[in-house]
Every structure is written in C-alpha cells, then in structure tokens.
C-alpha cells in the first residue's frame, strides 16, 4: 500500500477452471497410480503364488518320487507276498499231500519240514506197513530217503524217516 487507500484483494491462479483442471489431473493421476499400485500388488501376489506353486510342485515331485519308491516297495512286497502266499499254498498243498500220503495205520508224532527235505517221526504197526504204504511214496517224491526203526513196548515200531531232495537232480530235470 504505497499509493492506495486500500490493499488489493488476494489474487490466486486457482480459478474454477484451473481447479477443475487440477481435479481432473489429480483424479487421472490417482487412478493411474492406483492402477500401478494394483498391478504391483497383483505382480507381487502372482510372484508369491508362482513361488508357492513351484514349492508345491517340488513337494509333489518329492512326494511322487516317494510314492514311486513306495510303489516299487509295495510291488516288491506284493511279489514277496505272492511268493510267500504261493510258498504257503505250496507248503499247504505239500503238507496236505504229505498227510494224504500217510496211511491210516501209521500215526505221525512229529514232522519237520526242511528246506530240501522232510523228517517224519511216527509209529507203525510193523516195518512192512511202513515200507509199502509210506516209504514207497516218499521215495517217489524225494531223491534220497532213509528210515530207522526202534521198537516200542507194545510191539509197534517208532520210526524216523529222513528224506532229501537233491537240487542238482531237480535242475537236471
């Protein structure tokens, strides 16, 4: 106020038009910034998800390997089980056959099944019954068959029959 009685009114460049322009640009920049922020966030989320999926895939791969190993193991177990089962069935059949072999007049007291043989303990009324009814079939099965007797007090005979299969001969067949 050098020359005037009154001071000039405060002037501002922020006219309604400029304010509108600023509002427009502010909103635009805000939206751009928000979009950028959203994209950054999505990118971050995507990276996280990607890392998570990779980790998951690695875990699954590990699990798959484990699973494969388990499958192999189970397959082996199955084979073994089948083998055992088969063996058992064979054994059962063998035992059944064995007991079928034993005639009515001979009583078995003990039977020992070996890897390549069979040892039978029992009582027979006499040596002939044993020889004809038991020893003969055993001899047809096993390659080597040995029998030993010792008398009982009542006149019967206790016997021990030891029978072996020779693997060499089996291979030859």
């Amino acid at each position, binding site marked *: 106020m050098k*020359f005037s009685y009154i001071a*000039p*009114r405060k002037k501002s460049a922020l006219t309604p038009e400029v304010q509108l322009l600023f509002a427009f640009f502010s909103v635009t920049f805000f939206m751009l910034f928000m979009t950028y922020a959203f994209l950054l966030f999505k990118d971050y989320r995507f990276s996280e998800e990607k890392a998570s999926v990779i980790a998951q895939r690695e875990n699954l791969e590990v699990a798959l390997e484990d699973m494969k190993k388990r499958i192999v193991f189970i397959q082996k177990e199955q084979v073994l089980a089948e083998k055992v089962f088969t063996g058992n069935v064979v054994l059962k059949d063998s035992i059944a056959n064995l007991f079928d072999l034993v005639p009515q007049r001979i009583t078995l007291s003990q039977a020992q099944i070996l890897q390549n043989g069979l040892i039978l303990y029992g009582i027979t009324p006499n040596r002939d019954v044993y020889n004809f009814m038991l020893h003969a079939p055993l001899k047809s099965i096993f390659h080597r068959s040995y029998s030993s007797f010792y008398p009982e007090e009542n006149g019967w005979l206790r016997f021990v029959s030891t029978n072996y299969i020779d693997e060499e001969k089996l291979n030859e067949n």
Partner: protein
Amino acid sequence: MFDKLFGALYLKVFVNIIVGRTTITVYVEYCSGDEVTESFEKTFETLNLTKAVEEYISLHTAESPYFYISMLDKSQFQGALPSCNAKEHAKFIDISSYQAACYKNAWTYYTLKSDLLLVQKEYARVGLDFIFSPFVILAEFFKEKIDVHTAMFVLVEDSFLSLSVFENGELLFAEHLDMFYKEEAAELLIEDAMEDIGINIDLENSIDLEDIDADEELGDLEDFGDIEDLDEIDEIDEFSDEKELDSLMTQKEEKHPSYSVSSEGFSEDYQRFSLIQTSVKHFYKNPKYKSVFIENVYIADAVGLGGDLKHYLEDEMFLNVHIRKMDLLHEMCSMAKKELG
C-alpha cells in the same frame, strides 16, 4: 511460490474506473510482463455501476485471475496534510474519521472513511483493489517539478480540482475542490465563507499585516515596471476585503441554482479559476500554513482545458502557468502497476 509462478504466466488485467460528471469511463489494459498487449476504453452514460458497466468489467476480468480494479477517490472530504506525524495533523483536522496514508514519509493524504466504505460497497459486485487519491497521482505526475520547485500544483478533473502547494518537495497546503456542490453543500460553503469573513473581522490586525504584505508584493512586482498591473492588484486586494463575500456568493449562486453546467469552456474555466483564487487566498490568510509566495502553477490537465483558465491565472493572479496534458486513466493504470511493484 505457486502464485508467483502462475503470476508470471498469466496476463495482468488493469481495470481503471473514473466517475465523471455524467459518465463512467472504464479503461482496461492487458499486460504481459511490462508490455501492454491490448487496451480498451469505454464510456457509459451513467453514474452508477449498472449491469452494462458490470458486464464490461467482468468480461475483461474474466481474462485472467490477476486483475486489478482501480478507482479514483471522488470523495468531497479528502485532502492532504503536511508531515506524516499524527500530532501535526491535529492542527488541521480531526483525523479519526478519515482514512489517511503517508506519501513517501513526507506528507499525508486522507479521505473520509465512510466515503471509502460507501464506494467499496457500491462496487462490491466487481470489487475494488486500489483507490487512489488525486493528490498522489498529482505528486507522481509532477514528481520532478515538486522536488525542486516552490509552486502550486493543480490537477484539473472533470468536476474536481485537486490543488496543492509544494516547496521543494515539502507539502505546505492542499485542498480538494468540488466544482458542483449540492444545494446543502453550497449553503455550508456560504456559511464557511461567512466564517471566513468573521475571521477577517476578528483578525483586523491581520488585515493590516496583509496590507503590509501587499506592499511587499508591490515591491516585488516593481520588477515588472508596470504600474497598470499594480493598479489591478490593488483592485484584487480590494475584492479580497469586503467585496469578496459578494463576489463569492454571486459565483456560488450562479453555479448552483440549476446545477446545469455550461457546456462552454469559458464558464467552467472561470469556476475553476474562482476556486483556485479562493483557495490561494485561504492559503495566504490562514496562519496554520507556512506561507510562501506562489509564482508558478503547474496544471495537470485531465479534461482538455481551454486557454481561458491560463489567461485568468496569468492576468488576475500574475502566475506563471504551465499546463501539461494528463491522461488520468493511464496515470491511474501506471499507479496500479507501481503499487504492485
């Protein structure tokens, strides 16, 4: 910072309003930096802020947020006082009801607060940024003369005269004169004139002193070596004593009955001359003012004066008259620019 940056980019629009006798003149200047890019001027046949005036101003102010509306103070109750000291002012007026401002720490210009508020209220729809005192415009216009001369400086407006007496940059006397008083104002003026006479009667001794001064003046005027002129001075002095009241009253009565102003330059120039003469007498007679002898008068002509005023002043008051044309609107505009720095 922000405003400064934008302020440099935007145009500055200076709107200058002068309320004349029957018209309002609006001068608009568009400035880019220090360069004036466009200017417009339009006169409206009204005295109020009509819709047309308002629209014209708004049309230009809408061009830039940096617009400044300036107006010339038209209050009858304005003036200027020597010194910027409030205690000194008390000798002349009770400054409390006036809005005053100091000009370059040398003198004070003032106007009636209520008039200032009234004009601000009247122009509230467009708003005002600057209200300039005619004395300040006069001082700026004759800056190089005021600082080195002892002279009377007069700003002649459409219906006002702003008269001031400077002695080497120091203000001695200032008066704002209205050429067209309203009736009640005229009555007051007559009363004032009566009072002046009363003072003259009371101060009879001072009349004697004036006679002595007149003798001194005659002594000074001997340089002219023209006895007829001296006789004329005697006659003027005689007017100033007793016939003055009659002449004053006659002049006022001539002026006021119809308020109709003669379109001829002659009567207006005579009115101006009469007002100047009265004012100068007041300056000489009032002991409150430091008295110096006025030889030169510099007139800022804002209306396009005829040659009559110059002749009256030269022939009747023996003044060396210098008239300089002034475009008041342009001066106001440059004042607004100065004000903004």
